């Protein structure tokens, strides 16, 4: 017998449509609870797994919004209610003093990274979100969106904080209004996290999202280029420590943000949520500072322990001359990949001598690519066929290398014949 007929039978028994649901309803919930218990067994592992879904029904603060004191939250985060369920926090952070080793008044409003065109001249809008989950998907929302711009005196920060689900559309619209077509977004891991998530939220609320029209710079990518082989990881916290010389004190880890927001919704717990707002502020300020600091690391890579060959490769995409100069300045300490790049850039610059000398060093260490380049070099540039043949012999067997070997041998065989009449 299905539940509906069970329900209707029970309802007829009590002769009313009103009183019955109370009973039958708790029976349905009881049945589910009983089945869930039997499905999960009683062992510890299952209990651990279910920690995230503790029974909360007995908590009087459960879901009653009246028990959450909204005005004290707004006060605690120094924000104002701009709509039901939405707090805006606007702050000007004066560019005085330092963040770690970085002197804030030297902050640039338009830092320029290698190869950047006019996008660097746009207004740079630093953005970071805090979300209800870290696994993505349409059930995860951003409950806190922060944006900042740098002007001559201050970092101007605006944060939008949801105090319930209802105001999400209002928040997204308010956030979108802070943006204009003359902006570029700057984020940390925003390409794969914050922006796709925000796009999802705009879609879920049936709103057009502003992102297609806006350029976007994800600083994680340049940071990876410069430091992926130097640092244990490229998280924002590592960047603060290593690039800005700054350690956060009493920071609430980003991974605890979802629990902090849920805790506020369920039980009115305010303190952790206030710390999330602070965490987000710190993230955005660090992001703005890191953007400027990166340009310095590019100018003086050795001072920041940046990966010089990787930087040179990046520079070479827009300016081979600058890239080669950088490598030459560090020629003594280059790794093989750096040397190979220097050889490549030297050849492109027409400096065959430097290129050949680098290839010879590398070939002596068994670098196949360099051997092949030397073979080509001697075959086509110097005409030293004997040398070309020597390098050909060292190449591994393959269609291209066999072809080259045969051709050089042929040329060698013809060369004396051609010379004889002389």
């Amino acid at each position, binding site marked *: *017998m*299905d*539940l*509906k007929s069970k*329900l209707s039978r029970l309802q007829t028994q009590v002769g009313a449509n009103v009183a019955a649901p109370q009973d039958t*309803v708790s029976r*349905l*919930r009881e*049945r*589910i*609870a*009983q*089945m*869930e*218990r*039997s*499905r*999960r*067994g*009683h*062992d*510890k*592992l*299952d209990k651990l797994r279910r920690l*995230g*879904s*503790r*029974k*909360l*029904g007995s908590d009087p603060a459960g*879901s009653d*919004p009246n028990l959450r004191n909204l005005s004290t939250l707004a006060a605690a985060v120094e924000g104002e209610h701009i709509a039901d369920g939405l707090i805006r926090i606007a702050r000007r952070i004066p560019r005085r003093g330092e963040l770690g080793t970085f002197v804030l008044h030297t902050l640039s409003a338009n830092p320029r990274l290698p190869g950047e065109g006019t996008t660097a001249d746009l207004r740079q809008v630093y953005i970071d979100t805090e979300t*209800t*989950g*870290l*696994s*993505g*998907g*349409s*059930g*995860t929302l951003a409950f806190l969106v922060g944006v900042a711009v740098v002007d001559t005196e201050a970092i101007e920060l605006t944060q939008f904080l949801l105090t*319930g*689900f*209802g105001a999400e559309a209002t928040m997204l619209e308010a956030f979108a209004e802070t943006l204009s077509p003359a902006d570029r977004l700057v984020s940390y891991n925003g390409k794969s996290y914050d922006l*796709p998530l925000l*796009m*999802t939220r705009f*879609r*879920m609320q049936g709103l057009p999202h502003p992102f297609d029209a806006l350029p976007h710079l994800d600083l994680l990518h340049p940071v990876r280029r410069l430091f992926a082989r130097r640092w244990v990881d490229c998280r924002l916290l590592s960047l603060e420590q290593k690039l800005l010389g700054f350690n956060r004190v009493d920071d609430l880890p980003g991974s605890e943000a*979802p*629990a902090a927001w*849920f805790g506020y*919704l*369920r039980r009115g717990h305010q303190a952790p949520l206030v710390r999330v707002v602070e965490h987000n502020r710190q993230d955005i300020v660090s992001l703005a500072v890191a953007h400027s600091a990166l340009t310095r690391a590019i100018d003086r890579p050795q001072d920041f322990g940046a990966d010089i060959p990787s930087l040179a490769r990046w520079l070479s995409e827009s300016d081979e001359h600058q890239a080669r100069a950088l490598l030459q300045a560090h020629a003594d300490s280059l790794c093989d990949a750096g040397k190979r790049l220097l050889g490549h850039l030297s050849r492109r610059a027409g400096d065959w001598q430097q290129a050949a000398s680098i290839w010879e060093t590398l070939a002596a260490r068994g670098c196949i690519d360099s051997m092949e380049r030397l073979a080509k070099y001697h075959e086509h540039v110097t005409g030293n066929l004997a040398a070309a043949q020597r390098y050909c012999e060292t190449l591994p067997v393959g269609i291209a290398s066999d072809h080259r070997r045969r051709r050089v041998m042929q040329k060698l065989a013809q060369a004396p014949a051609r010379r004889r009449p002389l």
Partner: protein
Amino acid sequence: MSSPAEHMAPATDPAQALAARLRSQYAARITGELVLPAKAGHYAPLPDALDARLVEALRGRGVERLYTHQAAAWASVRAGQHTVIVTPTASGKTLCYNLPVLQSALTEKTKALYMFPTKALAQDQVAELMALNDGGRLGVRAFTFDGDTPGDARKAVRTRGDIVVTNPDMLHQGILPHHTKWAQFFESLRYVVIDEMHSYRGVFGSHVANVLRRLQRICRFYNSDPLFILCSATIANPAELAGELISARVHAISDSGAPQGAKHLLLWNPPVVNPDLGIRASARSQTTRIAKMAVKRGLKSIVFAQSRLMVEVLTKYMKDAFDKDPRHPARVAAYRGGYLPTERRAMEKKLREGSIDCVVSTSALELGVDIGALDVCVLNGYPGTIAGTWQRLGRAGRRQRSALGVLVASSLPLDQYIIRNPEFFLGASPEQARIDPDQLLILLDHIRCAAFELPFRDGDRFGKQDLGEMLAYLQEHGVVHHEGGQWHWMEDSYPANSVSLRSVAEGNFVVIDTTGGAQTVIAEVDYSSAPETIYEGAIYMVQSAPWQVEHLDWTGRKAFVTRTHADYYTDAIDYTRLKILARDKLDKLGSDPMGSDPNLSSPNLSVAQGEVHLVRRIAGYKKIRYYTHENIGYGNIDLPDQEMHTTAVWWQVNPGALDASFDSRQQALDGFLGAGYAMHIVAAMRMLSEPRDIGRAVGDGNAEWFATVGANGRGQLLGKQGEAVDPAALQRFTPTLFLYDNYPGGIGISEPLYENRAAVVTGARALVNDCECAHGCPGCIGPILASDEVRGYSPKAAALQVLGLLSD
């Protein structure tokens, strides 16, 4: 025998000639046969409305007209009806859905979602669409989207695919939870195609129905209302299953217009080689013999085996006969899961081209993979269901000449039942495919997933249970949050990842082979079957090869095993105590005719269905030697009790009638245990389910005592603490035989089981009665000890007596 021999076509037809030969030479082994006459094709012209580009593409592939069922499908779909097409293998099913889908993609730029149960089938389908596409250069883009789709290709599939081909698991975990990324796709989604629909039954089908409810919900969000086109192999209730899967009325098309040669089916029981122990020759030897005869006669053959290992063994035997000379191309090939996709594709091509004479396969070839036409199909063992048997037999069949199928029975009880009751198999319609999408736990899982995808609003419906109550339950557990008339997802998690469509219980165990020091995962075991299969000391079989469980890490969900060469298998002894919680249905039979008040009269028999609570303890295990089935030892198992709330059917006999029918309660008890064993086999067969989907127990129904087969091979009663209880000392002795739904909450088996209550008992009676053993065997009432002859009465006779009482 359902068709006399004189109705057969002349023996010049090679498959017919082989059938005649087998019948004359091995008459005693053939327990039943069936001849399906040849059918001519029925055709219809290409529909007028068909786009000219599509017509050209079809002509390019030699298609000038349609079969009538293809034309009927076109008409039904174009009329805006959800449509299910049920026709045999190789009858041109794919065109039934490709035509309307391509037409609409070409003329209206609409999109379609194709869903296949496996990745391999999805890839086949894309290849097929590509072929049709190339012919007319239609420019319709079809892509697969599954776990193998590389990350950088996914965006292109989402935004540019006109036809996206996927599987239910991917739809559930990869597409629906990320629907916003698919917004464009869902906005123009016009058709959803579900092929191999018959594979969506039981737990899997119940999950899939809910995944489709979620799909429909997402489509509504994007203002689309796609039409469903479903295809199925033969089952008894295609329209009903389709309707339950998509929660809407579905028009069924089941008359195939494709021509078909005659089909001849033989049921084959290997000869008895040891009459004392009732041991028969192996199915393997018989299968090989028949397949060899077929190949020698130049007939293209397929052999189906039940395990990958058996595929390899049979292939070796066939190759020993036909591929001795390595200079010639191979005539025999194996096909099974576990091969690389490229190998499988190459094999399929050879099969289609006819350069292979005999292929040995697992069920991997049962689903729609195109391998061309074959003459002979040999089934090494009963596939477990009537529908599954016909699907495999359908692999052999040509349009111009006849085909032969031979079902070779193994020694397993179900096989022996089928083979000894040919009229049941031959006369039965295929099974009903059943699902229970409103099973509370499955529904709850998908309500969680759906709430994540899109907040529910007050008054929304999802399934047939009270959604508001279920959401309230989830709110109590902090999973959702009610605000402003909506239920919002409220957890830092991705619920689809913790819901597996292929089972209802959580936390699969992995089986890890530690032979030789390495650690290799060789299998996964469901949580619910772990206690009875991977206890320490168990012999765990993978592809018929034995491993021994050395250590079970219950909390870590791991079983560590090593290879062994044991000549025995192990069988868990479970103590299942059941308590009846609520009786929903009751049937009283054989009431005392004198009693004027039916409530006071005492019926001889009552059968009931309802909810039960059971506590299961796996206390030990038996070691049983192969072939002789003798008990060669015992071991203890120390595992936590399993508790389950589920549904069951139970049989009770009036205590007075029972005491009157047996010399002792001990005999009655043995009879109940044996009857339960046989009824379990028959119930599993009738319910189109695996035997492990159903549990059985004998107890008092009040969890006071329960019965089990003890170390002496006799039934014994154990009390609440596992202490022995003397049946003779009980005041009231009402042994109750339970067959229960072996999933938490039940998956809808017990109601149809109750409807079939009489047939189950009748079937079990026939099974035991017709068994050739003396006192009982694993083929009828379960293994008995060699010492049973000294019992003084036959356990088999006792079981028959109980079955007699139950069929009053």
